[in-house]
């Protein structure tokens, strides 16, 4: 009865009380309100009843009938990525997306599955890239397919199928020939070269893209040494801003790889 009354009032409000009088309230509290506090005009009567009825509807919130729950996905025995890794993934995506492929691959290689809260955003993020989406599905396990079943917007929309050979490999990043040798050099030499270049400003903002690629692909055992060397770059160097950024990248990459290892 209250719903009917509310719907009638909505109709009157749409048309306006200049065209139609408000309906009479049903017997009960709303009718008592109209008697206790009579309003002189149709518009004021409607406003009073709308206010009262809206409160009654909200305060009288009732549940709908129970709904059948959905069948859970098949179990995945792999341990999930730790909670701290969820925060790290968000940082990677926001600040250093060049590390994201490695983050997903590291999780899979370490025998982990994606933490459940990461499954929707990772799938949604790569739905236009078949290979990355397929890699994310591997990391997500049965939960990934199950989520797509219930939320089709998480499905891959790419026209081309994934390149299976690339699923387990990191994509290549552009690198200048002068820096390629550093990829496999001893950590101390890499650290020395980068620190010297940044201190003397021989390496500057123009080199940022290739230096980022270098740090994203260099041997992970060199990362801490490189980060510490860059941290010690002369603060008066014009490249100090770049040095800070590269040190952050090196620290983050080392942190994420360590974090995803199984205890």
């Amino acid at each position, binding site marked *: 009865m209250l719903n009917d009354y509310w719907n009638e009032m909505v109709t009157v409000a749409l048309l306006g009380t200049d065209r139609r009088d408000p309906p009479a309230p049903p017997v009960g509290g709303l009718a008592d309100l109209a008697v206790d506090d009579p309003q002189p005009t149709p518009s004021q009567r409607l406003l009073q009843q709308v*206010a009262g009825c*809206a409160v009654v509807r*909200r305060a009288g919130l009732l549940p709908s009938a129970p709904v059948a729950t*959905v069948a859970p*996905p098949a179990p995945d025995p792999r341990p999930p990525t730790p909670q701290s890794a969820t925060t790290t993934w968000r940082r990677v995506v926001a600040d250093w997306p060049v590390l994201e492929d490695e983050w997903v691959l590291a999780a899979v290689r370490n025998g982990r599955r994606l933490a459940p809260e990461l499954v929707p955003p990772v799938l949604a993020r790569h739905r236009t890239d078949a290979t990355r989406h397929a890699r994310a599905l591997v990391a997500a396990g049965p*939960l990934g397919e199950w989520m797509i079943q219930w939320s089709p917007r998480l499905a891959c929309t790419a026209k081309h199928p994934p390149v299976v050979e690339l699923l387990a490999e990191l994509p290549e990043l552009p690198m200048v020939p002068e820096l390629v040798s550093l990829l496999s050099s001893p950590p101390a030499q890499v650290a020395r070269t980068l620190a010297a270049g940044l201190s003397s400003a021989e390496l500057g903002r123009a080199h940022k893209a290739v230096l980022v690629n270098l740090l994203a692909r260099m041997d992970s055992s060199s990362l801490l040494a490189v980060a510490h060397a860059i941290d010690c770059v002369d603060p008066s160097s014009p490249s100090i801003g770049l040095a800070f950024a590269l040190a952050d990248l090196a620290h983050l990459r080392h942190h994420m790889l360590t974090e995803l290892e199984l205890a």
Partner: protein
Amino acid sequence: MEGCNAPSPGRWNPPLGCLGGICVAPSGYRVVMNEVGATARWQVEQVFALAPKPSSLTAAQPLAVPSRWVGAGCDERAVWGRCTGGSAEPYECAVDHVAVAVRCSCPSRVVPCKHALALLLLWARGQVAEGEAPAFAAAVVASAVAKAARHAAEVPDAVAVPVPSSDDGDDAGPVAPPIFPDRDPNAGRDDRVARMAAGLAELDRWLDDRVRTGLADPALARYSTWDDLAARLIDAQVGGLANRVRRLAGVVGAHPDWHQQVLSELGALHLLATAGRQMGSLPPPLADSVAAAIGWQVRQADVLAGVPDTDHWAVMGRSDVREDRIEVRRLWLRGQVTGRWAMLLSFAAYGQSLDTSMMVGTQVHADLFRYPGALGLRVLVGRRHADPAPAADIVGCSITEACAQVGTAVAAEPWIERYPVCVVAAPARSGARWVLTDDGGSLPLVEGTTGIGALLACSEGRPVPVTVEWTPNGMVPLTAHLPDRAIDLGPTADPSFLAAG
């Protein structure tokens, strides 16, 4: 002088409903002739009886020491002084203790403010020397005398004079002064109240026009229609209502049922406009709620002067919402012992940061200070007694119980737009909508909420304790409480808005 039906000294007796200095004597007070003349010094209990609420006394006590006052003095008619404290300029406070008129330059809307109570306490304890009244104190006396004369001419027996009860066993002294003035002569606050009243009246006229001409009026689809009203409401210093009006502009035409949502909100606005103009006749907690909803600010210092609510507070959920040009973060806390909810608000304009001192899934042993109001949800954090620790033993209720909790909250403050509950339920599909369901029923989730996908993934379709925010449009999932961790699902602020600065 007669006296009965009076507040007992030292007991909580909310004597008046007030809005910024407009004070209304409640019906339970005897109305007797006010004797204008010299009085002896008050008893401390009489000062206690003057306090509008217990927290005012708590706030006044630290100020009732001579070191906080400069130029304090008294005579047979008034007591005055300048209270030094947080502000650059000391507050000038004067009390006519015969006609009981109060004037203080502080911005508090509580009448009498803590400064006036502190000054009276100081005087009652004999710690104020006699002296010659300065101009601001003389003005209070002159104003009170003039008002009393006018009043006497109009209504010979019409000044509310509650005095200490004769059966409470205390010696109230030879003089039982009137306990409260009929009006606070603070002109600044009266101006603001008048502006607010005019704004509320204008809002109601505007609402009346809308329902008269109909919601199908094309003017409603124009943002300027709503923005113009919102601007006028801001001018009238009812910013809380202006925000609600602005939000409505985006609802018109946004979905097929927009007219139901708009009409419902117009009803809430009408309710607030009506309640705001009858603030003096409302019970004090409800009047405080109305004042907060229409945009009256309460000073943090006044809140922190209240009685702390100490508990182990679990951080149950977080919700970030952009309101106009401000990101608003709501942190929902629940007392592990009392089960009471509390809301911690933080705001960030472009380039600023939101409060990150409390993380979802942790709990902290702390003092919380509640803002006044019927629900008293909003709090400030006081002293923390321990470092945060992971929250344990999160207990959820059934869907039916959640409905009852929401209903109770809405009945207390019918204009609230969100309220937290923690339910044990599973996400499930009901037709085109996602719902939370258990054996007793189901409640709809707000469509398009980002947390639904994460809730589904975290729960894998099984029932889990989940903290949700009730809104008139459905439930917003905030946190999934898994056995080993809490997953924050709440709406998140745009990081580029916060970090760009």
